[in-house]
C-alpha cells in the first residue's frame, strides 16, 4: 500500500507527530478514568493498524528523510502541548518528568545502545545529581545553571569510581557492579543521616538569571502554572542533550563506540582504546543523568531515596528497550507510554512494574530491536557525498 522505493514526502511524518502530540495532550488533560481507558484503547488500536498496514513504517521513513524539518516540527509540537496545558499543574509536571527521564535515557543510550556498557543504576546517577542540587542549592550561592552542571559532574565522577576497577573484565561484571550499586544506593542513603536519611532533603527551586521558576508567569489576568516554566526549561535542556548525543553518534567517536560494543577484540587490533571508550561512554551517560536529576530535584523541591531505587533504573532500561536500542527518537514515545499511562490510569498503576516487565519480555522475544529500530549511521545525512 505504501510505496517502498520512492522517497516519501514529509507529510506522513508531520501527520504522525501531530497525532502523537494530540494523543499525549488528551492523555494528560483527561482525568476521567473511563475516558482514559477509551483513549488508551483507541491509541492502541490505531498503533496496531498503523503497524499492520505499513503506515507506521512509511511515516518513520518520511521522518528520517526530512530530519531538519522534523526537528522543528517536533519542537513546535512540544511547545504547543505545553502551551495548551499551561495552567495544568499535574499535567505539566508529568510532561517535564517525561522529558527529564528522556534525558537520562539519552545517557543510557550512549552507554548501552552505542558502547554496550551495561548500566543498571541509571536512577542512582539521576539521584546523585538531585542530591548535588540539594546540597549545593541549600549551602552555596552557585548559580543554578552551574549547579545543574555540577550535578552532572558528580554523577560522572561517581560512575568512573565505580567502573574503572572492573573495566578489564567481561560485560557481566559491569552489570553486576551497577546492579549492586543500584540496589545499595538507596539503602546507603537511608541508613545514614548526613543526606537527610529516609526523609530526604528539600531543594530550593530553580532561578535562572533572576527568573525564579517557582513563580507562575502572569499573562493578562491569568496566572500560569509554575510547572510551565520548568517544562520549557526541561525542553530546552532536552534539545541540547539530544543534539549533542546525535552529533556524538554521527561521528568517529560514535562509530568507535559501536565497534567496541560489537567486537572488542577486533576493535583493539585496529587501535581502538576499548577501556577509554567504555569509560567515556559511561561518564557521558551519567553526566546526562546527573544533570536531569538536578533539574528534577529543583522542580519537585524535594529529594528522597525512594525515587532512585533499582526499580526506577529498570524503568529507564525498559524505556530504551521499548523505544528501540540506540534510536534516540524512540525514547520520547517510549518514555511517554511508560510514565504517563500508569500515572493517569489508576487501575494499572499498581501493576505497572509487572506490565513493564511483560512488555520488555515481549519486545526481547519478538522484536529485540525495539519499536523503532535504530537506523544505519550516516555521518552527514543531508549532505551525502555527491559521489555516492
Amino acid at each position: 500500500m505504501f510505496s517502498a522505493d520512492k522517497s516519501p514526502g514529509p507529510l506522513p511524518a508531520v501527520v504522525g507527530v501531530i497525532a502523537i502530540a494530540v494523543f499525549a495532550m488528551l492523555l494528560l488533560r483527561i482525568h476521567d478514568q473511563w475516558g482514559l481507558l477509551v483513549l488508551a484503547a483507541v491509541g492502541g488500536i490505531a498503533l496496531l493498524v498503523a503497524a499492520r498496514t505499513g503506515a507506521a513504517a512509511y511515516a518513520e521513513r518520511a521522518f528520517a528523510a526530512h530530519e531538519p524539518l522534523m526537528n522543528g516540527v517536533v519542537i513546535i509540537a512540544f511547545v504547543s502541548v505545553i502551551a495548551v496545558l499551561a495552567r495544568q499543574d499535574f499535567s505539566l509536571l508529568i510532561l517535564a518528568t517525561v522529558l527529564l527521564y528522556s534525558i537520562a535515557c539519552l545517557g543510557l543510550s550512549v552507554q548501552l545502545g552505542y558502547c554496550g556498557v551495561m548500566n543498571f543504576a541509571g536512577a542512582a546517577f539521576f539521584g546523585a545529581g538531585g542530591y548535588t542540587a540539594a546540597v549545593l542549592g541549600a549551602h552555596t550561592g552557585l548559580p543554578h545553571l552551574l549547579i545543574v552542571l555540577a550535578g552532572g559532574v558528580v554523577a560522572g565522577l561517581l560512575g568512573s569510581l565505580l567502573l574503572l576497577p572492573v573495566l578489564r573484565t567481561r560485560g557481566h561484571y559491569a552489570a553486576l557492579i551497577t546492579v549492586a550499586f543500584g540496589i545499595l544506593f538507596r539503602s546507603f542513603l537511608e541508613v545514614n543521616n548526613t543526606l537527610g536519611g529516609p526523609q530526604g532533603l528539600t531543594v530550593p527551586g530553580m532561578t535562572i538569571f533572576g527568573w525564579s521558576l517557582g513563580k507562575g508567569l502572569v499573562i493578562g489576568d491569568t496566572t500560569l502554572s509554575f510547572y510551565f516554566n520548568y517544562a520549557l526549561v526541561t525542553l530546552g535542556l532536552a534539545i541540547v542533550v539530544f543534539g549533542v548525543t546525535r552529533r556524538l553518534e554521527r561521528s568517529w567517536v560514535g562509530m568507535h563506540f559501536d565497534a567496541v560494543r560489537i567486537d572488542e577484540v577486533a576493535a583493539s587490533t585496529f587501535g581502538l582504546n576499548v577501556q577509554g571508550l567504555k569509560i567515556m561512554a559511561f561518564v557521558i551517560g551519567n553526566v546526562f543523568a546527573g544533570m536531569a536529576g538536578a533539574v528534577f530535584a529543583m522542580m519537585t523541591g524535594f529529594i528522597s531515596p525512594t525515587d532512585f531505587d533499582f526499580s526506577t533504573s529498570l524503568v529507564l532500561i525498559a524505556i530504551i528497550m521499548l523505544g528501540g536500542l540506540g534510536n534516540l527518537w524512540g525514547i520520547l514515545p517510549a518514555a511517554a507510554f511508560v510514565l504517563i499511562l500508569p500515572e493517569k490510569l489508576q487501575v494499572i498503576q499498581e501493576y505497572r512494574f509487572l506490565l513493564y516487565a511483560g512488555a520488555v519480555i515481549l519486545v526481547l522475544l519478538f522484536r529485540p530491536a525495539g519499536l523503532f529500530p535504530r537506523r544505519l549511521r550516516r555521518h552527514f545525512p543531508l549532505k551525502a557525498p555527491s559521489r555516492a
Partner: protein
Amino acid sequence: MSALLSCHNLVMRFRGLTALDDLELDIRHGEILGLLGPNGSGKTTFFNVVTGVYRASAGRIEYESQDISKSSPQAVYRAGIARTFQRSRLCLPLTIFDNIMIGNHRRLNHGLWFNVVCRKQLRRQYEACWDEARELLMTFNKALGTRLLNAAGSVSMIDRRRIEVCRALVSRPKLLLLDEPSAGMTHEETNELMDDILIIRARMPELTIVIIEHGMSVIERITNRCVVLNYGRKLCEGTYREIALNAEVQQAYLGKS
C-alpha cells in the same frame, strides 16, 4: 632484504596445549611471505601473538628493532601492523563505510571536541575518507562502490572478506597479515582477490605481506618465500618450489608416504 619482524624462541601455551613451540621466524622487508602448515600448526596463533591479542608465554618479537612481545594490540596497530581474521570479524550491523573506517583509527581525529563541535572540519575529514574508502573498495569490487552505506551484513560472504582486507589496508600499514583471506572463494574469486592485492601492493611498494593460505596455486603465484609450520615450530622455509619438494613437508600434510 633485512628483517622487518623477527621472533626468537617464541612460545605460546594454553593450559597444557603448546601452540607455538620455540618458534624462530623472520619476515623480510617488502616480501610476500606465505605461512603454511597443516591445521593446528600455530599459524593463526602466531598472528594473534604478533598482534598482541595473546601474550606470549616466552620469547621475543622484534619489529623494526623494537621489542613488541609485550605490546598491546593497540600499540601493535599503531606501529603499522594490520590484519584480517580467519573467522570473519566485521561489524555486521554497521555500514560498509564504517567497517572500513574502523581500520583507519590511526589517521582519524577522535577527540570529543572535534567530533561533537567542529562539525565542518569533521565533515572535511569524512569526505576525504569517503573518497579513499570508496576507491579502495572498488579496487576489489566495483559494484560495492555505490553501496558504502549499506550494512556490512547485507553483502555476500566473499564481499565481506574483501571489505575486511580493505579495513586492514586503509590505514596504510607497513605489515599486513592476511589469515586465509580466500576461504570460501572459488578459484576465479581467489585469483581475482590476489590480483587486487597485487594492485594495491603496486601502489604501496613498501608493504610487507604475510599470508596464511591453503590453496597451493595461490601460494605459488603470489609469494616470494614460504615458511611451513608444524606443531608450532618452523619445519622449513624457502621458495614455494623448494618447500613443495621437501619430504618432511609432504609428510606433515599428507602423512607418512
